[in-house]
């Protein structure tokens, strides 16, 4: 037995026979959602062919606001709401996820920074004699500095394509098969998230991440480079 408010404002009801029970990946959705035939419902509500809500699913999430604004303009009599307006908690959660991602990127870049500092410091200390010799025969400090920073950048440039290839392969495969998080499904489905996640690589993320990585490489080469400049040629050459 289902009760509704009809188009005229009266309370009406209809009795339906349950034909099946469904379960989606979203338990809160399942609790409040019932599917009926459109015509049956229209008869009870007296809407005859009309409807009270249309859900629009976009392929590109970024266009939500633009499309909503367009629809508002086109149908000024209708109430147009984006999903963030309909479900602010969800929007908040999604925003937190995005922030988390930037924090994680930050942590990874920090780890990268330590990796590069370590590698370059080793490379510099190992070649102390070479740097001593170079300064002895007349390579000046700005050149030595530039050389070390450039080496670090080149190291990173070699790493970036390899990283992109690896990421594309792994994410590509996961996007196809999905990441099965069913062991956490209870928690996830309460928030309305599916328990199989299909990761996507945003093309727009590539450039900023590459630039940040390159910047990190340059920044982290500075300390090893300064270290190299402190070598005294007379001492560095005779280091065994």
């Amino acid at each position, binding site marked *: 037995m289902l009760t509704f408010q009809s188009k005229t404002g009266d309370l009406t009801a209809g009795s339906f026979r349950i034909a099946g029970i469904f379960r989606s990946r979203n338990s809160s959705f399942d609790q409040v959602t019932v599917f009926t035939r459109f015509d049956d419902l229209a008869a009870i509500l007296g809407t005859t062919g009309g409807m009270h809500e249309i859900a629009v699913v976009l392929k590109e999430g970024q266009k939500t606001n633009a499309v909503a604004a367009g629809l508002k303009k086109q149908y000024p009599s209708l109430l147009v709401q984006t999903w963030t307006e309909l479900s602010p908690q969800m929007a908040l959660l999604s925003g937190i996820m995005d922030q988390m991602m930037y924090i994680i990127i930050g942590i990874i870049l920090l780890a990268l920074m330590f990796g590069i500092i370590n590698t370059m410091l080793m490379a510099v200390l190992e070649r102390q004699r070479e740097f001593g010799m170079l300064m002895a025969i*007349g*390579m000046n400090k700005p050149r030595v500095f530039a050389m070390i920073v450039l080496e670090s950048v080149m190291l990173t440039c070699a790493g970036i394509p390899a990283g992109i290839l690896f990421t594309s392969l792994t994410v590509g495969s996961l996007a196809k098969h999905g990441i099965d998080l069913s062991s956490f499904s209870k928690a996830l489905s309460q928030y309305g998230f599916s328990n199989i996640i299909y990761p996507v690589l945003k093309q727009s993320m590539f450039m900023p991440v590459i630039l940040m990585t390159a910047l990190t490489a340059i920044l982290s080469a500075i300390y090893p480079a300064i270290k190299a400049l402190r070598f005294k040629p007379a001492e560095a050459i005779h280091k065994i």
Partner: protein
Amino acid sequence: MGNIIESHHLSKTYNPDTIPVHAVNNVDLAVEEGEFTALVGPSGSGKTTLLNLIGGLDYPTGGEVKIEGVDITNMSENKLIDFRLKNIGFVFQAYNLIPVLTASENVEFVMLLQKTSKNEREKRAVELLTEVGLKDKLNKRPSELSGGQQQRVAVARALASKPRFILADEPTANLDSVSTENLLEIMAKLNKEDNMTFIFSTHDQRVIDKARRVVTLVDGKIVSDTKK
């Protein structure tokens, strides 16, 4: 002819505050253009320290060094690097060359620092390597060369910058007797034909015999100075 190198009361004391080591002690030395001078003395007598001081690789704790009348004792580190590039050629005992560059690229490197044009660099590198007998090794990396050949590349590299003199700290210490003789011959030839000034330290009697002037150091002091 005037002196290219002059030192007055030159001293270098290591650890002045704890156990002072007078590595170079009040040395007066004058070197004229065209000399072929050996610096000898027992281990620890201060040969390396003295060469570093007159080559502007290290600062003295007392006295002064003049290269062609220019006092280099108070030059800043950056100015000294430039001064070395323009005036002094170096040959070290080992690790003279940049391992990833070929023989000719190593020789060209100093000329690159001096901003010599590409054509001239390549031409001069071939000339110099031919002069040291390595015409057929132009494109070999140091790891593909023998110790003696590497030292000859180092001599060619030292010459490339057209220096006023060449300092060599035990250039033959890691070489067998044939390579030693070979290197000395090349240095002597460059000295005779181009009037290039050489000052080298050594322990090797055969090398000492080839020198025309022998300066002996003991405990940082010159104890004998003989010209032949």
